[in-house]
């Protein structure tokens, strides 16, 4: 019987397999950041161990770094200690680090692909659940906890029970104005937040193949939001074209050997998945969340649901609590929901393509006077590219804030947070209670919806905007 893509990649990385025990998997790339690593390095020191493969390890600073005044010492002493601890650990253990101020600094899941370090057929881990992003290249990539970070540092391997396999096939093409973000939000509303649990998911079908690498990363990024262990997409010409020429991509004969191997990374025709889901892209529309988990979403054209709409007891109670927290009335059209802050950024939608899309919609328009628009590039490279293209000017002229690279308001660990009761439309991936600041209320949206919302001040899509007057800008 044939094998699926994920089974092929898995099998290639098994160091040791014994019945009754998890497989011992080799890890090709270990990404590190300041928040989930200090205790792991401490563990190494306590047991007198070293980093086995510093050459397969990369560190950057992203979660708690400021996006203003990043050239000055970090004001919050506790944040500063965490960043300084990473710098000390990287130095002591010989790990390559891209610190604040470095041209390669940024969100760890933006930096890996951008350097060309993320390649098909790899195993990639990081102490961050959105490591699934790298699956867009046909890699098995997943988030791990700090004990596992220590394990990978010490051994370059990880014991892992083999997950089940699932195929999510998205047929047809996405309609104009509907993005990868809408696709994945639709999927999560369909499956619920636990629907992918225990599975490695392969996204396939015409709509997936038609996505750019940025779009594929957006989809794989949110695999964890429906509980999947990892999500991946078979590598193809789009993938190879993205990687070729990047700083850490294979060169010359190595490139040819690599591509030859990558072409074999496809699910065999006779392979069988443990589970299959089929969706139709043609029916998808801009999609937004109304609740406090990413599965609580509806089309932008719909109204806030009522708890009574849910048959399942747990879902009904969850909806009641969510509506109360979100300060929403059942039956309110989502287009009438007033938004205080729009956040464009994060490892879900903080890449150059996302910023171009936002700028295209903002160009010649103004941000609503009662709304704040925060644009946070995913990396310094993205920021520089955007500036080369003049996107920063477009944002600033519209009244937006143009910031430095990092996770920023995605998790509100740095000073970029919502006030209690403040409402955001956010291109990030989590709308959990308090995620963007204590008492903050988050609606997850695509980049076009975020940009249009910033202009109108209520949840909107670009179709709701007045045309830009001729001659403006």
């Amino acid at each position: 019987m044939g094998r699926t893509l994920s089974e092929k990649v898995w099998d290639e990385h098994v160091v040791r397999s014994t019945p009754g025990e998890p497989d011992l998997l080799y890890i090709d790339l270990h990404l590190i950041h300041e928040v989930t690593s200090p205790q792991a390095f401490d563990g190494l020191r306590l047991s007198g161990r070293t980093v086995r493969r510093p050459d397969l390890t990369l560190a950057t600073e992203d979660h708690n770094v400021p996006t203003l005044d990043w050239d000055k010492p970090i004001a919050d002493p506790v944040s500063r200690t965490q960043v300084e601890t990473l710098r000390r650990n990287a130095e002591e253990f010989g790990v390559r680090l891209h610190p604040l101020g470095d041209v390669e600094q940024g969100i760890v899941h933006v930096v890996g692909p951008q350097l060309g370090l993320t390649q098909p057929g790899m195993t990639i881990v990081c102490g961050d659940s959105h490591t699934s992003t790298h699956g867009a290249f046909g890699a098995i990539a997943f988030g791990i906890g700090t004990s596992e970070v220590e394990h990978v540092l010490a051994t370059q391997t990880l014991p892992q029970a083999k997950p089940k396999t699932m195929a999510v096939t998205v047929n047809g093409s996405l309609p104009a104005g509907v993005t990868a973000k809408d696709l994945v939000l639709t999927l999560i509303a369909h499956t619920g937040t636990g629907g992918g649990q225990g599975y490695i998911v392969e996204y396939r079908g015409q709509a997936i193949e038609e996505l750019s690498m940025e779009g594929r990363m957006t989809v794989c990024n949110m695999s964890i939001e429906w509980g999947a262990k990892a999500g991946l997409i078979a590598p193809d010409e789009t993938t190879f074209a993205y990687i070729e020429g990047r700083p850490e991509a294979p060169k010359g004969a190595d490139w040819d050997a690599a591509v030859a191997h990558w072409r074999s990374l496809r699910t065999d025709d006779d392979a069988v998945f443990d589970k299959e889901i089929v969706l139709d892209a043609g029916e998808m529309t801009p999609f937004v969340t109304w609740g406090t988990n990413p599965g609580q979403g509806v089309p932008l054209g719909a109204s806030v649901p009522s708890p009574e709409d849910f048959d399942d007891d747990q879902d009904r109670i969850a909806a009641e609590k969510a509506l109360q927290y979100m300060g929403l009335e059942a039956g309110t059209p989502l287009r009438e929901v007033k938004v205080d802050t729009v956040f464009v950024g994060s490892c879900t939608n903080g890449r150059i393509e996302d910023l171009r899309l936002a700028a295209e919609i903002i160009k010649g328009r103004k941000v609503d006077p009662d709304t704040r628009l925060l644009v946070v590039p995913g990396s310094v490279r993205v920021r520089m590219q955007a500036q080369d293209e003049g996107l920063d000017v477009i944002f600033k002229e519209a009244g937006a804030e143009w910031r430095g690279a990092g996770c920023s308001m995605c998790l509100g660990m740095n000073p970029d947070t919502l006030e209690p009761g403040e409402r955001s439309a956010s291109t990030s991936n989590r709308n959990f209670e308090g995620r963007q600041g204590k008492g903050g209320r988050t609606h997850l949206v695509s980049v076009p919806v975020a940009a249009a919302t910033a202009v109108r001040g209520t949840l909107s899509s670009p179709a709701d905007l007045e045309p830009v007057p001729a001659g403006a800008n």
Partner: protein
Amino acid sequence: MDKFTTHTGIGVPLRRSNVDTDQIIPAVYLKRVTRDGFEDGLFSAWRNDPSFVLNQPAYAGGSVLVAGPDFGTGSSREHAVWALQNYGFRVVISPRFADIFRGNSGKAGLLAAQVDEKVVQRLWDLIEAEPGTQVTVDLESRTVRAGSGPDAVEDSFDIDDYTRWRLLEGLDDIGITLSHEEDIVSYEAGRPAWKPATIRA
């Protein structure tokens, strides 16, 4: 890691599903560089509410958390496990755990016991009817027990064999893996030369 065989302690009912890691411990509390001191951040948003279960004296000193389905979804932060442990929890019982949370628990020595949804419901009813009720979780026999008489709960829980064995023996994962050093070395010898490296020789 200390061995875990059986534990008896006050059961704490958390009547919520989808308790994500941002609820268990918000990001602002993640800045410490040690494994201790995270108890202050545990369920911090909910602890402002005087009626929240951890604020009720009857459950003071509780060590067995009984929660709804999809506990620990979201972030990979092991700080969520440490916060529960730092506060005094040894066991979390739920009908469904997020994968990363369950993995982290196993590594850090917190027992994540998966039971049927009905068992959680009965445990909630029992420990709410009589706050302070002790719950016993026996890893050897994979059973959870609480109360006596007609409402008593006694049922089995799920945990994978490997994690159970490691917890029972109190084994350090890294030590086990390093005993297979030869396998790692021989795997490395066969890796293609074109695989990427972050530091070039």
